[in-house]
């Protein structure tokens, strides 16, 4: 009986086996089809999100802080003291988102509006064309290549101290024009150049200069150029020489032949000397403007003149521990000495210097918390007959500042 049922049972098993196999294959086909559909959808999504040639992004910076100061003005042995504090410090507040558009690999548009103590302004707005190896051509509104501080080191998240060295950035205009720049190897050394042609500075009625004027005050264009040399193959040292030459007087006025000739020398040295990273920066600016007659502010029928010669310089050194514990390696100690001498016998002449020391704590590579103390001394060399302040000013300020790159 059992033997009789054996063959039909095998037959049934085989039928079930083939039916199961067919069903399994059918399911497999369904799974494969779904998977292929999913892959196709993902490929479509990826194709839709491909980067293309252009790219837009926002970078920039924000700097906020607090300053507490005490100022002593001394005139004829009479001292006047004033104290104050500001939160945030109005002179060192900045929120500057930088908009960057990249068109392919050869064009870059940069625009940096800035909300700061001047209200709403623009730091730069320009188009760069990467024309050839070692040649970038720029046009628009940009920082002129005079020294290295204003163009490379002034950002709050780069600056080791809460303040800018007085006079240095002020003598580096941002202007409308065209520029050519580039860097190249010279064996083991490196060189870079930066040449700009712009509207130029404009001479004011008191002998000071203004910059960033969209309309030129004369037919002359100002040439500004910087040449940089990095003599060591590790790029640790850079020495720069700059010049800025152009007429500054108004066309058709008595000052129309006045010229402004400026020179700058800058130095940067950054090197690891275990257990610290040493960072040295220095710059020396000289500005000469032709002698012209200015209208006296106290008697407009009279004129006066003075040697319109200005110098500004700073030397800064900072050290940051490396290869140590995580807290200590985020600290950086910096010190700076600054001088700024404006023309004597003018309405604004002063021999000024400041000593600045600070400790920074780096929260990450682009976010810093700074505590800075600055002692400023200014001895007026201005003309008493022009009604200017001729005393001495001493200001001590404590800054607490936070800066971040966006």
């Amino acid at each position, binding site marked *: 009986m059992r033997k009789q049922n054996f063959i039909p049972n095998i037959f049934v098993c085989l039928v079930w086996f083939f039916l199961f196999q067919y069903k399994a294959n059918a399911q497999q086909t369904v799974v494969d089809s779904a998977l292929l559909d999913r892959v196709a959808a993902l490929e479509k999504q990826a194709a839709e999100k491909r*980067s293309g040639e252009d*790219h837009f*992004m926002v*970078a920039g910076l924000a700097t906020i802080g607090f300053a507490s100061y005490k100022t002593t003005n001394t005139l004829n042995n009479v001292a006047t003291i004033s104290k104050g504090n500001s939160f945030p410090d109005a002179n060192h507040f900045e929120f500057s988102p930088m908009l*960057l558009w*990249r068109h392919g*690999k050869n064009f*870059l548009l*940069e625009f940096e509006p800035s909300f700061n103590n001047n209200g709403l302004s623009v730091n730069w707005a320009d188009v*760069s064309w*990467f024309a*050839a*190896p*070692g*040649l*970038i051509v*720029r046009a628009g509104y940009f920082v002129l290549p005079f020294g290295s501080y204003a*163009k*490379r*080191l002034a*950002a709050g*998240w*780069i600056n080791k101290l809460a303040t800018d060295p007085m006079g240095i950035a002020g003598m580096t205009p941002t202007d409308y024009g065209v520029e*050519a*720049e*580039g*860097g*190249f*190897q*010279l*064996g*083991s050394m*490196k*060189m*870079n*150049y*930066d*040449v700009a*042609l712009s509207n130029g500075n404009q001479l004011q009625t008191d002998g000071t200069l203004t910059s960033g004027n969209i309309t030129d005050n004369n*037919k002359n264009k100002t*040439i500004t150029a910087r040449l*940089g040399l990095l003599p060591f*193959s*590790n*790029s*640790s040292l*850079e020495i720069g020489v700059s010049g800025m030459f152009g007429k500054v007087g108004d066309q058709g006025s008595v000052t129309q032949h006045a010229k402004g000739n400026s020179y700058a020398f800058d130095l*940067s040295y*950054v090197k690891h000397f275990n257990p610290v*990273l040493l960072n040295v920066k220095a710059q020396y600016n000289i500005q000469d403007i032709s002698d012209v007659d200015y209208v006296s502010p106290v008697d407009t029928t009279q004129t006066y003149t003075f040697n319109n010669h200005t110098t500004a310089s700073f030397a800064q050194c900072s050290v940051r521990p490396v290869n140590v514990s995580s807290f200590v390696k985020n600290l950086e100690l910096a010190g700076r000495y600054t001088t700024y001498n404006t023309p004597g016998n003018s309405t604004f002449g002063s021999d000024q210097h400041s000593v600045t020391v600070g400790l920074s704590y*780096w929260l*990450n*590579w*682009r976010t810093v918390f700074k505590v800075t103390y600055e002692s400023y001394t200014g001895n007026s060399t201005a003309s008493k007959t022009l009604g200017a302040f001729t005393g001495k000013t001493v200001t001590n300020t404590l800054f607490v500042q936070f800066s971040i790159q966006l």
Partner: protein
Amino acid sequence: MKRFQLQKIQTLTAILSFITVAVLFMNSCKVSQKVAAKSGAQLWTENCQRCHNTPSPSTFSPEQWETIGLHMQTRALLTNTERDKIIEFLKQ
């Protein structure tokens, strides 16, 4: 007036000549083997810290690094080779 225009033309010619000669000169200069062998990581350390702390590669996306690379080249006046090597390193 003509003299003024002539001066302008001379000035512009001098600037353009300087730039042309400078570009031709720089591209004919031989790069030392030591410099040519430098990696993107080494160039990243050497060049970025000239002005600021060395950036973390994770800060930006590969596309953003391309854009930042062009921006930084205009500030630090890097050579094209340096820029490309640093960006390739940061994109990894």
